[in-house]
């Protein structure tokens, strides 16, 4: 045998990068769903745990290789670069729009629209200001981090469209992720303060809290009947954020900051 069994296995993984990525991510998702169910009783959504594991792996990859693309810098896991790259990411996000029921959406009415707009604008402004306070004072970085405060998808989509640097992209995702976790875990506790006991409030919540997994998990833990109302408005959040982020919000930021 010129090659050991492990070398042959590694060779298979290496030459089937994307397929290896599918298997890896699938395993991470499974581990996350187990952790979500057993450790947090579904309080913390599996997707949030999986993304945290992803960021953790990226950190590990960065530390070991000393390079900038997290796990994708390992030859064995280079397929992760394709699976999580801009093309497939945007492709999958567009696909989620397929589930939107426009007729249902009309029921959300004006209050849904208002909360969607506020839910995009307010976190953006907060995120951009905090970014500025920490020294990220160029329009692209401020916009990207502000967009991350909207959701952890709007952030990197905006960042990619504007050509933000990878560390700003990571911050953007991290911001969105922390916010999603806060929403998921904190909603039942803050439900009374927010008046979250009727469908209209759930729609307002969906528009302002934004992240669909955060909203669904948060509402599910508060009052399961409210989930569809919140999720309905929240599904527009990504689309609106992706539309406004690299356009109106970036231009406004650029006009103010230069």
């Amino acid at each position: 045998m010129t090659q050991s069994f492990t070398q042959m296995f590694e060779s298979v993984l290496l030459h089937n990068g994307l397929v290896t990525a599918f298997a890896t991510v699938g395993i991470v998702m499974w581990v996350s769903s187990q952790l979500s169910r057993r450790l947090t009783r579904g309080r913390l959504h599996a997707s949030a745990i999986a993304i945290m594991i992803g960021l953790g792996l990226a950190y590990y990859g960065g530390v070991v290789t000393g390079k900038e693309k997290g796990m994708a810098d390992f030859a064995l896991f280079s397929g992760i670069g394709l699976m999580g790259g801009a093309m497939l990411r945007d492709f999958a996000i567009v696909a989620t729009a397929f589930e939107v029921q426009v007729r249902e959406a009309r029921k959300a009415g004006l209050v849904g629209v208002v909360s969607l707009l506020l839910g995009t604008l307010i976190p953006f402004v907060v995120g951009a200001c905090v970014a500025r306070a920490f020294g990220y004072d160029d329009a692209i970085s401020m916009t990207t981090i502000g967009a991350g405060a909207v959701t952890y998808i709007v952030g990197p989509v905006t960042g990619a469209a504007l050509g933000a640097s990878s560390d700003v992209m990571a911050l953007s995702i991290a911001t969105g992720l922390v916010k999603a976790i806060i929403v998921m875990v904190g909603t039942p506790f803050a439900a009374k303060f927010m008046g979250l006991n009727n469908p209209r409030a759930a729609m307002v919540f969906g528009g302002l809290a934004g992240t669909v997994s955060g909203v669904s998990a948060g509402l599910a833990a508060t009052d399961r009947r409210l989930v569809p109302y919140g999720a309905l408005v929240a599904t527009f959040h990504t689309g609106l954020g992706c539309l406004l982020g690299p356009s109106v919000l970036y231009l406004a930021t650029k006009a103010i900051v230069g």
Partner: protein
Amino acid sequence: MIIYGTALLAICHLVGLYLGDLLGAAIGVKANVGGVGIAMLMLITIRLWLHDRGLLPKETEAGVGFWGAMYIPVVVAMAAQQNVVAALRGGPVALISAVLAAAACACCIALLSRTGDHEPLPPLPEELTDEPESVRMSASH
């Protein structure tokens, strides 16, 4: 055929990105302006149009649905290739922005839900809380 759905998605994606680039060029920004958002709107519109004419069999829907369901896994892969080392050097930006943003939004929600009709739903009868698959771990993020 299932590829019809995927091709539909692909065409919307491409046209949307193209329009986004055009828009960016038109306003003088070297960036793609809302391409993904435009693609989403296109997909919603076309889907409605096809659905109303009975031109959307289950297979075609599945061709799009699969990729929507791949959304979270793709995001996980995306997270796994970020420059987290550099981000951590950036300090507590993420934590502080997120907490402040969440707090600001919670206050807005509290305000808005106290306007208009806020008749609470009748209380739920006490049920078992163990429903592992009820919170769909699917396409939505």
